[in-house]
């Protein structure tokens, strides 16, 4: 039994590693449905790296070109400001991933899906994958171009959420649809909160200078 479980964990890990998640997501969700990965393992093997990639890309792109918000001149941040922003970006992503996994486990009780935290963490990792890989576009730090790549990535992630959640948690598609919509509500609110906190801090002079 344990061997089988370990084997499944291993298979799941291999699936993500091989980017199957991008091309054959259903298989990954089916694997996940059969396995109980340890939350620590998912965290250190996937989530930390997924949280690290976008800030790294943003740092490299920002240092080379500065961020184009739309005007002719880019917003060039100093090396220390860029490091500070990138570090915060990393921490925010980590908190976002982990909190979404906890929220998902909390919500799942309403929908009779009693799977361990590790499964929710792995699900978050699978959903985050398209956006994380899409964030390579941060290397070209133009806000609009970034939106152009990240919007389809986000919509794909939402599709994965609706299609994969009931499979991974072993609940009916109908219940999965309800829970997925609740999670979309949480993600939208979490995102807009972050946006609000960021601009409020920025408008109050905390964070990098947006002057010339």
């Amino acid at each position: 039994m344990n061997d089988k479980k370990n084997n499944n964990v291993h298979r799941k890990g291999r699936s993500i590693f091989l980017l199957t998640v991008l091309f054959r997501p259903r298989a990954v969700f089916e694997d996940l449905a059969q396995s109980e990965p340890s939350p620590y393992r998912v965290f250190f093997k996937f989530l930390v790296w997924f949280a690290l990639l976008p800030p790294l890309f943003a740092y490299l792109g920002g240092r080379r070109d500065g961020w184009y918000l739309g005007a002719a001149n880019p917003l060039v941040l100093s090396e220390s400001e860029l490091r500070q922003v990138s570090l915060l970006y990393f921490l925010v992503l980590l908190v976002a991933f982990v909190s979404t996994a906890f929220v998902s486990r909390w919500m799942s009780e309403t929908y009779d899906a009693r799977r361990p935290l590790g499964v929710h963490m792995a699900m978050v990792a699978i959903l985050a994958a398209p956006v994380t890989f899409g964030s390579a576009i941060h290397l070209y730090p133009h806000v609009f171009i970034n939106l152009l790549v990240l919007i389809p990535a986000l919509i794909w992630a939402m599709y994965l959420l609706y299609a994969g959640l009931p499979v991974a948690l072993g609940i009916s598609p109908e219940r999965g649809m309800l829970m997925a919509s609740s999670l979309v509500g949480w993600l939208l609110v979490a995102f807009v909160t972050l946006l609000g906190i960021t601009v409020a801090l920025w408008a109050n002079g905390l964070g990098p200078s947006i002057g010339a």
Partner: protein
Amino acid sequence: MTAKPMDDGAVYYHDSVVRFLVMCSLVWTVLGMSAGVYVAAEMIWPEINFDQPWLSFGRLRALHTNAVIFGFGVSALMATGFYSVQRTCHIPLPTPRLAWTTAIAWQLVILTGGLSLLAGINAGKEYAELEWPFDIVIAVVWILFGIVFFATIARRRIKQIYVSNWFYGGLIIVVAMIHVVNSLAMPATLFKSYSIYAGAQDAIVQWWYGHNAVGFLLTGGFLGMLYYFLPKHADRPIWSYKLSVVAFWAFTYSYIWAGPHHLHFNAIPDWVQNLAVVMSVILLAPSWATMINGIMTVSGAWRKLRTDPALKFIVLSLAFYGLATFEGPMMAIKSVNAVSHFTDWTIGHVHSGALGWNALIVFGTYYFLAPRLVGAKLYSVRLANVHFWLALAGTMIYILAMWGAGVSQGLLWLSLDEFGEPSFSFKDIMASMPPYYLLRLVGGVIFLTGAVLMIFNLYMTMKGRETLRIRPPEVGSVQEPT
């Protein structure tokens, strides 16, 4: 006037007027959203106004907002209000002719009003652009709407007034009040008047109107729709009836103060602005109480999703309702408003509510209502499912594009050079926006395509079929007869 028995001596609900209003609101859906798509395209290619004044942004934008809010939105509210008040009171509308008069007069005033906007007749108040003759007719028609609605409530056969009726009632009373007060004006000619308010007072009255139109029409009225149709869809009672009533009164009390948050950093007293911030933040509690009530009601009814494609629209509308009612109070906070005000972030916020909440809940309601009005199955469940994904994708693309554009605009406008002057001119910032507007246009076209699919689906469902004649059920002792 009382409900007259039909030829067979029995009493039936008056649903033909509901059907008429549903059809009218579908026509306004296409007209209003097409106008929106066209003005979105004009933001990228201004030359497509072809130097025709009636095709210019200034005129078409007002037509867009009036057609979607008052044409599509209010017609849907009248339709669902008439439908639900009969069923929650267990009597047909006691004044059916007045209901028909209200329904037809409303369509005529929006149609002629829309044409007047195209002709350049505009009172210059946002969401209250129609000139004084239209304002008077609107007030009269609205009072007729109130008479039809409250006469039904007054003659109800059940003691309790169900919560959806509180929201519809709140919509009728508050919109009458804000419309009359904000529209008070001195006519100069037949199509030109001057507001009786001036300067800062005018601005405060205008946004007291504007925000409460959002509050009691686009939020409260549609919550009435939610509270009737969601339990009907789910086939189970609302999760917490007590919570719904508490939320209604808390919502009504706190919303009415929040208007001045549209006027932050303007020449109105600071305390008025701060009070608006506090009340806006408090407003989150009753707004979310309703969202939780809705989610918990539907969560126990998941089996219905197998047979009812409409329910998923309502479920998703609750997610966007949660977003919009959270984002609004957040944008009312002054530090956030300093960045978001006068940017496209506001447009994105409005559309997360208008597309994600208002339109989706109406779509979900119509997929439920139309087949029941004619006693038929929905023409195509598959088309409805395609519509669901188009609506979700269109809304997401729209609001993400506007978040990107709006936050960029806000930050660039706040950016100062070493002399303390703005680093970027307004013109330069706006000149860099077309790519975002193109993305918004794509989102709008996708959303409109979905709406057209729905209209085709509903048309095929109702085509050639008579409106069902349904008798009110007997009132049992458990329902506490009046």
